[in-house]
């Protein structure tokens, strides 16, 4: 359906996106994962024809959209990270305004507004000005606006950022429902690993403008198939214990937090006795030691040495 070929964007000295290659098939939910500043928003802006790439191409149904973006724009619904709504207008007035932009009018526009308000659960709030909405309601309306013209491809840039868990679940369920019921293709960017794990069939992971991993959830987790992750919790970590872990040749990676340290070791190694003796030596009391199946967060940690929300 849509393909990015060696897509690059340079802003003065900063290369925000470096030779990005990715594709999205019809009916898929694809996740684009990465921390803040990874280049996700720039990438999707180029994909949606809002930003001109410095190099590379965006192809829609095997045709470049750089010179003629109209066919792509017709089928794209964009949910920006910002609340792209008019605070002083009511929910209905916002939908009317954006509906007219998508050339809907008369009874068709009215029907679509009712339908969208129903889908995003704001039918009773249609006459209320957006300024009086909660953060979650604004996010839902932000999505609703992008749904007005029944887009075949929905590009969502962190649509659930900064809202309560209930609203977030509502949004995730809405996305899933749109994909299942209407075969809507979705590109979902986030730095919340759990959202992407829950929703997406395939995942692209970006960091510092580079694509560092891609594939299905299982394929990506396979990156850590030969290893396991052990989380060690203590009352308070000390430098001596961390130094001893880092010096241990069996341990591949050590990520230290305030009271928790996560280590990656080969799957066949039994680390428990060693960990207990190291803690004794460092005069540290262990609260818990958990062996975890690798998560996407672990993969990201493994690939970049940093947590997603750093």
């Amino acid at each position: 359906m849509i393909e990015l070929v060696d897509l690059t964007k340079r802003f003065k000295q900063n290369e925000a996106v470096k030779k990005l290659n990715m594709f999205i098939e019809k009916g898929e939910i694809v996740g684009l994962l990465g921390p803040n500043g990874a280049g996700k928003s720039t990438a999707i802006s180029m994909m949606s024809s809002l930003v001109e790439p410095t190099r590379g191409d965006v192809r829609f149904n095997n045709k470049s959209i750089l010179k003629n973006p109209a066919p792509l724009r017709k089928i794209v619904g964009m949910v920006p990270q910002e609340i792209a709504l008019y605070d002083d207008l009511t929910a209905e007035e916002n939908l009317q305004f954006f509906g007219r932009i998508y050339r809907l009018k008369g009874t068709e526009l009215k029907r679509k507004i009712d339908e969208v308000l129903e889908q995003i659960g704001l039918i009773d709030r249609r006459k209320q000005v957006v300024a009086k909405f909660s953060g979650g309601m604004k996010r839902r309306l932000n999505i609703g606006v992008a749904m007005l013209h029944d887009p075949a491809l929905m590009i969502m840039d962190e649509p659930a950022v900064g809202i309560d868990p209930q609203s977030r679940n509502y949004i995730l369920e809405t996305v899933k429902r749109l994909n299942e019921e209407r075969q809507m293709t979705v590109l979902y960017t986030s730095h919340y690993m759990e959202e992407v794990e829950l929703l997406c069939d395939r995942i692209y992971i970006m960091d510092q403008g580079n694509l560092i991993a891609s594939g299905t959830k299982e394929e990506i987790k396979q990156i850590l198939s030969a290893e396991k992750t052990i989380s060690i919790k203590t009352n308070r970590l000390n430098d001596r214990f961390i130094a001893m872990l880092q010096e241990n040749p069996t341990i591949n990676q050590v990520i230290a937090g305030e009271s928790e340290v996560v280590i990656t070791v080969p799957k066949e190694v039994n680390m428990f006795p060693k960990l207990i003796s190291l803690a004794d030596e460092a005069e540290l009391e262990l609260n818990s030691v958990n062996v975890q199946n690798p998560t996407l967060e672990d993969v990201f940690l493994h690939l970049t040495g940093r947590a997603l929300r750093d």
Partner: protein
Amino acid sequence: MIWQIMKKQGLTLLRNPVQLLLLVGLPIILIAILGTALAGTMNGEPSAIDVKIAVVEHGDEEEQVNRFMNSIENENALPPEAVEGTQASIDGLMPVRTLKEDVFGNDDLENMVDVHEAAPSEHDELLNDDTYTAVIEVPENFSYDMLEYIVLDKPVQPELKISRNETQEIGGSIVKGIIQQYQEQLTLGTFLSKNGMNMGAVELDEESITGDTTSVDQKSPVTAKAYYAVGMVVMNVLFLASTIGSMAFLEKKIHVFDRVILGNMSRWVYFTGVLLSGMLLSFLHLLIVYGFAWLFFGVSWPDIMAFFTVTLAYAMAVGGIAVLLTAISYRFNSELITNFFSGIIVTIMAFIGGSFFPIGETSEFFRKIGNFTPNGAGMSAYLTILRGDGIPEVWHHVLFLGIFAMVAIILAALSFPKRGMSA
């Protein structure tokens, strides 16, 4: 779609009470404050200054004038022709009556000065009455002595005695100035008569003691309230341009403009929407504030067609500024230009254009520069209409506003970025 953009701009403004108050309420308040405070500096309306004067005459002027006429007839002090001439102009030779009726009673001063004639017995009581600005004491033989001084060239000029109330500084100064000028005029009359010139010159030049006038051609003077109504409106409507510029930039910042672009709508539709919103809202803004000025301050327009023509031309210029500010802020992805415009440029333009005071009267250079600003041109056109002129006299200002609008729109079109986020 353009209508949808304009409707949305209108609704957004209407639902923003602070913005509305600043745009519509502020100029009305400023007109009231400046128009009242500076009313005395301009012609055409009652003054805020109230002067109360008591005139205490110790003698009878008519008796003194008769006595003087008898004496010049009997004593043959003057040739018969000069005596006849003096008799003919006897009405103008009564200095106290001239002071009371012609000086304090003239059209310009009678609203400001309240003259009370008092008996000599009231003199001390009047001096203790703080409501009086000044007490003018006419000595017993004042008129006779004055006529001797004027007609017979006697060396001593009699003087009026003025007691001023020091708590009413401005009023007291005004009275002193009037009396001084009155006495100088009498002296001038003596000089003229000695040199064989017209005795009519003895009469006071009433025009010379009135205040400044804002009218250039003296057709119909502009009142302070009318002046500041125009000054404040033409200045304030410029803030509407920056408000629309800010609203448009916010649309870019929160990616509403991206949605517009992704809707496959031409950026020129959006551009035109901003331009027409600027024009329409400015037009309405001008009408609303002028409407208030008409209702509450009595600022009316002698030629309504000329008024609408100038208003339309000025609204076009403001729309041009609005779309130019929008385009530049989109181009540089920064609201700096809009803030700079509303914070600095509007004040400078208002100053040069004459919104704060008639700067054009201080120098020809400022007048010309002022007319090269849209607000200055608009203001000159409005004031010309208020003075009673019509479209032919304001046509060059209307043309300038039209050209200004066109240049602003062309510059805006050249600056407007091609895509949503990319500069």
